[in-house]
């Protein structure tokens, strides 16, 4: 089964083509925040070089955040559009789940808490437990101030990881947790691995919209 995965939730974009669990090709790049057009250049490169044939893709996978709204909207829109001719399935995976899976495979730990900067002086967190082939999110996303989040770090020995290390890393000090002391970003290959495994197992996709942690409008309606 050929999976094309795209991940644009941070300023490090990536694209991966997988044949079942084997990564056939992978591209990563630093997003130009102003234009965010590199994903198209990478797809074009894949077409030109012949390693990407969209007609042969069985499943399109996409990371849906939490993260940069612009990146997520582009990623979701481009995979849904590419999947339309031929009516191919599109599978959404939380970008945080993909990062958690990478950390689980790397550390052998069973519990990973992925944390991010939710702005407005708040952090978001998602707690993941390992399964056979993919991570399982425990509970919903949490959005709270730093103290509230760090008071509840999960089981002793849980690994904490963030793609916002530059902004919040210095403040992260959850008691009893193992801290990944560097910036780690979600990557398309793990989006593809998790999506492919879930898809093959017949599990429904997550919603094909970005993970929204705040309402669209913070002011009350006028009418």
């Amino acid at each position: 089964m050929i999976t094309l995965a795209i991940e644009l939730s941070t300023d490090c974009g990536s694209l991966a083509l997988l044949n079942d669990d084997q990564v056939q090709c992978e591209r990563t790049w630093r997003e130009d925040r102003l234009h965010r057009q590199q994903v198209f250049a990478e797809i074009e490169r894949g077409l030109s070089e012949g390693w990407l044939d969209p007609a042969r893709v069985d499943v399109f996978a996409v990371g849906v955040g939490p993260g940069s709204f612009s990146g997520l909207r582009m990623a979701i829109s481009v995979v849904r559009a590419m999947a339309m001719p031929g009516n191919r399935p599109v599978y959404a995976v939380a970008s945080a789940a993909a990062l958690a899976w990478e950390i689980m495979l790397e550390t052998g730990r069973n519990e990973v808490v992925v944390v991010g900067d939710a702005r407005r002086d708040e952090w978001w967190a998602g707690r993941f437990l390992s399964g056979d082939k993919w991570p399982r999110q425990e509970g919903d996303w949490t959005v709270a101030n730093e103290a509230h989040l760090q008071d509840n770090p999960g089981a002793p020995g849980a690994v904490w990881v963030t793609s916002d290390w530059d902004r919040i890393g210095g403040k992260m000090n959850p008691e009893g947790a193992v801290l990944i002391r560097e910036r780690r970003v979600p990557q398309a290959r793990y989006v593809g691995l998790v999506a492919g495994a879930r898809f093959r197992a017949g599990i429904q996709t997550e919603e094909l919209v970005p993970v929204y942690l705040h309402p669209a409008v913070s002011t009350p309606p006028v009418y």
Partner: protein
Amino acid sequence: MNILGLETSCDETAAAVVRDGHEVLSNIVYTQIAHHRPYGGVVPEIASRQHVEHLPEVIAEAMAQAGVGWSNLDAIAVTHGPGLASSLLVGLAAAKGLALRLNIPLIGINHLEAHIYSAFIGPDRIDPQALGPFLALIVSGGHTSFVKVEAIGRYRLIGRTVDDAAGEAFDKGANLLKLGYPGGPAIDKAARAGNPALVSFPRGFVHRLPGRITGLEPKYCVSFSGLKTALLYHLRQHPLSPEPAAEVADLAASYQEAIVDTLIQRAARATDDAKILAVVGGVSLNHRLREKLAIMADKRRARLILAAPKYCTDNAAMVAGLAAHKFADHAPRSQIMTLDVDPNLGLGEG
């Protein structure tokens, strides 16, 4: 030649398939008005969220209704500006994805140019190429502009609003009169039972342009910001009674008359130079404006071309139709790498 057009510049999610630039095979619009109504105007973040959610189904419906297969498409066209950046981005990403997937050209379309072209699509169309130079009035929620059109693709902006667009003035007026959103249709409806001469609201004629605006002729420029303030002050001095229906009708009619008179006076001046006037955009649906435009054009022996009602508000048929005229300039995949959204795109720039 079949072109799939996408339009997501503001609060309408739209897709259409148009053959040979004028035969509309499908024209699907998902309107987000219900989501924005509680806030009295378009909320960019809501608009973008709605586009992401609904654009794929709108495209699928447009393709199904058109009855053409994916392999029968010759190009994808998409609005890339002007508009809301976070909304434009969704349409552009989908358009690029489709163009890459199908290996066909991508054609970036200027939203204002597409509105001008909306007067030339549908079964009773006039061929714009056979028309010669004409003048276009684009009047909508986001724009009020007078444009000299030498030919499709050759434009000169000669006048515009220096502040609020006409549609914005309708929204703000309707808000003050508690008529709801969108304000244009609400005021149009309320005004039918009212007396347009009851209150003489100021007409927004501009005699001198602010220094920041260059290259335009004041005689074709308008201003609507003072009108809203005038209504606000009027309501402070004459608060509405507990049973205000008749008063609201009179105020709506008077307020509408001020907007319409302003546009008509400027349009009349413009038809002194060009004997053909095309009026496009959502506000061109206003009954009073259509009525007075017809009278003005008749008096001046000018030819008036109005976009068909279903092509006045934002739609993708105008995008796909216009793209046929630009197709020859686009080699396969040529624009896919370079085309980006431009929220402030001007006419003649893309």
